């Protein structure tokens, strides 16, 4: 308690001294953002027929699934009574934004993502259920759900359904992450969060982070497989990343300019916070390194003709910086929103422990877990066809 009190500057309401939402709650929007972004990138193949992105189609879907499986874990670990979490499904409070999380999550997981992946792989699952050996054979058999009919007609139906699912999947992905933004944006008590732009800023930053993750994963996995990545796919993915980034940055700047111009009662408190405690994570990491540098890098290789190797390098650097920048954005929203007093008269500090239920170590483990799940998923449902060209995805 003495440590926390020592970190207080000015006046905080006494109950505000302890931060309520830790790094685990930073992870929650980060993970759901990656899910939504990866799914929207995959949807471009199905809905807008962006064929250049086909090599990453399956990878994007599996990545979305891996991250979606982990997304509720930080929330669960953060609860004072995790054993009561089922009551969010059984007795939800309909006026609460948070109450809907379980339903939005389940809808997205089961009705959209799992079904879409299943339909995409169904023909191969049936084939593998006959050719695979050992536990995999049983796994594939279970995954056929007892349907092993693979005819041109059945594939056509699969594909129609898949397209339909993608079409409802896009608003669902928007809903999933826009909703996470709403959880913060609707808290009128907190001026750092309370803005109607929050859901849309969250959404675009989600798209940015998801695309960057797939871009990076595709390059890394290609390197592991010792295959050259499809350069056209990389270029198109990077173009989409740049476009989403420009919208995202525009929205964030709009929010910033609006705050500065309006300068309401909270402005001085927030301004001071951004110039001091949040200077490094907000100005340096989020805006400069995590946004402006990747935008310039992506824009430069788009405007100036550079070699494939240089483009790949630029994409990798831009993707890594983007992922760091978007993480910093989540950090600045969640932690930044708790550093100042609602009296606007003081500030507290966030002291993160290493080995603690809500400390750095569990956060790191939770960030590694989706990659472990993704590794397992790619073993079970290979996203690339290493015997021929890249897996086509869909038909």
């Amino acid at each position, binding site marked *: 308690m003495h440590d926390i009190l020592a970190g207080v500057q000015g*006046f905080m*309401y006494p*109950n505000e*001294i*302890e931060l309520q939402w830790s790094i685990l709650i930073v992870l929650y929007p980060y993970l759901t953002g990656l899910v939504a972004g990866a799914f929207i990138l995959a949807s471009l193949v199905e809905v807008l027929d962006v064929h250049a992105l086909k090599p990453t189609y399956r990878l994007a879907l599996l990545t979305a699934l891996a991250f979606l499986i982990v997304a509720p874990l930080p929330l669960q670990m953060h609860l004072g009574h995790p054993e009561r979490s089922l*009551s969010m499904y059984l007795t*939800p409070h309909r006026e*609460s934004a948070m109450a809907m999380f379980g339903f939005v999550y389940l809808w997205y997981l089961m009705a959209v993502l799992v079904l879409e992946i299943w339909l995409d792989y169904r023909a191969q699952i049936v084939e593998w259920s006959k050719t695979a050996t050992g536990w995999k054979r049983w796994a594939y058999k279970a995954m056929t759900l007892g349907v092993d009919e693979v005819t041109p007609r059945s594939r056509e139906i699969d594909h129609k359904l898949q397209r339909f699912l993608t079409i409802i999947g896009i608003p669902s992905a928007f809903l999933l992450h826009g909703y996470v933004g709403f959880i913060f944006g609707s808290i009128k*008590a*907190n001026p750092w969060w309370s803005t109607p732009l929050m859901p849309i800023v969250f959404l675009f930053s989600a798209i940015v982070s998801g695309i960057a993750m797939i871009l990076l994963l595709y390059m890394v996995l290609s390197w592991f497989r010792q295959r050259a990545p499809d350069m056209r796919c990389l270029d198109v993915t990077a173009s989409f990343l740049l476009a989403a980034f420009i919208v995202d940055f525009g929205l964030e700047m709009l929010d910033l300019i609006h705050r500065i111009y309006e300068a309401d009662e909270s402005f001085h408190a927030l301004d001071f916070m951004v110039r001091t405690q949040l200077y490094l994570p907000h100005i340096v990491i989020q805006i400069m390194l995590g946004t402006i540098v990747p935008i310039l890098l992506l824009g430069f290789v788009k405007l100036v003709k550079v070699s494939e190797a240089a483009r790949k390098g630029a994409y990798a650097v831009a993707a890594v910086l983007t992922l760091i920048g978007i993480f910093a954005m989540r950090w600045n929203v969640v932690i930044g929103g708790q550093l100042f007093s609602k009296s606007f008269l003081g500030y507290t500090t966030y002291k993160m422990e290493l080995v603690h239920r809500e400390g750095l170590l569990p956060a790191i483990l939770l960030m590694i877990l989706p990659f472990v799940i993704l590794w397992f998923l790619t073993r079970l449902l290979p996203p690339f066809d290493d015997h021929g060209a890249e897996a086509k995805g869909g038909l």
Partner: protein
Amino acid sequence: MAPDRREFLAQSGKLLVLTSLASAAWEYVLAGTPEDAPGYRLDAHWWGMAIDIERCIGCGNCVRACKTENDVPLEAAYFRTWVERYRVPPIDPQHPQVEPNPEVDSPNGGYDGFPDKDPRGEGWKTFFVPKLCNHCAHSPCVQVCPIGATFESPDGVVLVDKKRCLGCRYCVQACPYGCRFIDPRTHTADKCTLCYHRITRGLTTACCEACPTGARLLVDLKNPNDPVHAFLKNNSIQVLKPNMATGAKVYYRGLDGAVR
């Protein structure tokens, strides 16, 4: 030397009786007062509080009474009620355009009073502001609770069902007044109950009872004879952060514009 069998049995018997009694007494303490409030009608009341800033002397009696009555953790980060001291500097005639920043403190929530008198000098305005849950009629904390574990009772008191609370802390974030905390012992949300266990039996709250100057007054807005009606009529009254439109029911007389 080992005790003989008779002595051993006698001692064991005493120990057994004492342990049983202590256990029964502890059960009783844990359960609180077991009786319901007979004759109490939920629909006959609409509770709130009236606070007279000019009467508050910052003695901290209310904070101590509240912590004792409601078993609030004694650490300096957990308060159902607390007292703030505002010291507002005068406007500098040389620089009248500079808005004076108030100095605010609440050492240990005012639990020990404000022993440091620290007069700031000529022209400074010093006063105390007792704070507690505003038992809002449109509570943001109630709105956000994902499972309805925090709720407005029909008699206008915002309460937490600790047996259901998930400990998600969303309500703590949503309260504009900083009135909620997470009890480190139960890992659930905690806040002022307006001493619900007392007021439903016709008593006043612990803080009101302990206040030596009558600065705090429990009020029942549904009771036409309650002095609150005269208090509201005859004084300039303000609630905290009226722009939040929460329907706050803690009414302050003499609340300075500097108070947040």
